């Protein structure tokens, strides 16, 4: 009889240990997915920041009268390089997106530029990065949603408290990015 009681106790401990391990691993896995998703965004942001001087260089000669837009791009690039947190990077990203959109919108007025192979390739490269950022953001936000659901609902929240894990911020799209860009001539 005593034997059976011992087995039951052992069984209960094993089940509890399994449940603990499951939630611990789940939280870790979800957190890792977020950092992976974040590095995907970061790589693309960095690539774009590196490409911007090339773009400025190749269009400067043609678009001599568009000083303000170049200032805008340079400013966005500086902000991007200074940004550290997710929110800062999201903000700098929005600014950069708008600045680049403006450059490409203005480029429509310069037929010579639009026939330039080098420029077209840069444009494709940058719009490709733009889309990748959008998709990386989608993946990142999905991952954050799943993680936040886990660490804010019962029973995940108990584990999260013990493990010191908190909800993570989303990579936000601001209103200005959603609106079409105004180009003044």
């Amino acid at each position: 009889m005593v034997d059976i009681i011992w087995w039951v106790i052992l069984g209960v401990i094993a089940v509890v240990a399994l449940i603990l391990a499951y939630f611990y691993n789940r939280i870790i896995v979800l957190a890792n997915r977020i950092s992976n998703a974040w590095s995907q965004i970061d790589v693309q942001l960095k690539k774009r920041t590196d490409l911007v001087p090339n773009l400025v260089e190749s269009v400067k000669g043609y678009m001599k009268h568009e000083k303000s837009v170049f200032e805008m791009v340079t400013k966005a690039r500086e902000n991007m390089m200074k940004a550290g947190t997710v929110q800062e990077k999201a903000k700098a990203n929005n600014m950069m997106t708008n600045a680049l959109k403006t450059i490409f919108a203005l480029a429509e007025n310069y037929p010579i530029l639009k026939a330039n192979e080098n420029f077209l390739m840069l444009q494709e490269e940058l719009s490709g990065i733009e889309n990748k950022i959008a998709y990386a953001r989608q993946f990142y936000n999905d991952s954050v949603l799943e993680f936040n659901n886990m660490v804010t609902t019962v029973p995940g929240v108990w584990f999260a408290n013990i493990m010191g894990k908190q909800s993570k911020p989303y990579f936000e799209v601001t209103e200005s990015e959603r609106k079409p860009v105004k180009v003044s001539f």
Partner: protein
Amino acid sequence: MEKISFHDQIARNKRNSVFLMIFIIAFAVLLGFMIGEIYDPSIAILFIIVAGVMGFAQISYSYYNGDKMILNITHARPANTNDVKEKHLENVVEGLAIAAGIKAPKVYVIDSEEMNAFATGRAPENSSVAITTGLLNKLNREELEGVIAHELSHVRNYDIRFATFIAIGVGLIAILSYMFMRSMWFGGGRHDSRDRGNGGLIIIIGLILAIVAPILVRLIQMAISRQREYLADASSAQLTRYPAGLASALAKIKTVNKGNMDVPEAISHLFFVDPTKTYLDSLYATHPPIEKRIEILKSM
């Protein structure tokens, strides 16, 4: 809910791949045994061993090289990244791979007016997607993204592993059955010297197998790939969050495609839409009707 079914799908594909592998080897061994029985029963064991080893070697070789073989047969070439259009294609693939959370597959292009695409490989880490120039030239960005997202969901779900195995299985079993039939003609003259009691039975069983197995594998090819196309369409919409893009791509493909691609039947199920026109009934079609796919996408 969604997550569970997608992980289930991966597990199912891996399991089915193993079953198919065992089935093909068992089939090879069985036919080897029967050929041995017809030729000379005293060395039948030798035939079994040879058939088993050959079947296993073929399967292992295909596991690692099936994707290259398929890319070769379809005359796919690596995308030229100095070309703006093909660079664009590569960017779309890389972007959607990020959205799907997988490593970007290698990008190939097939020079053909027909609009089609396929994905192959044994796992997402070493997969490839191939797109025809017809597709690349005639679709806009949203439409192209829809098609690529469809292919990437095949990659992510390990559909590509099972589909590549099916392609090899269809080809291999057809060859084995043919070999068996041939051996019957050559072995036919030697029967008078031995007792026919169970030799005749074996021949009949072998014949039935040789006829039924290729049909069976083809039926698996059809049934499974049709069901997967719907699933991949749904996953595509989930990735791009824009089912209308894929729907409009399908509508374009429907009006443009003549269904005259030079592609063996064994790999037709890999493609986005049926590369060859089949006039057989829907039981034999590897793809669901395009209208039906569009209808489902529009209701999302």
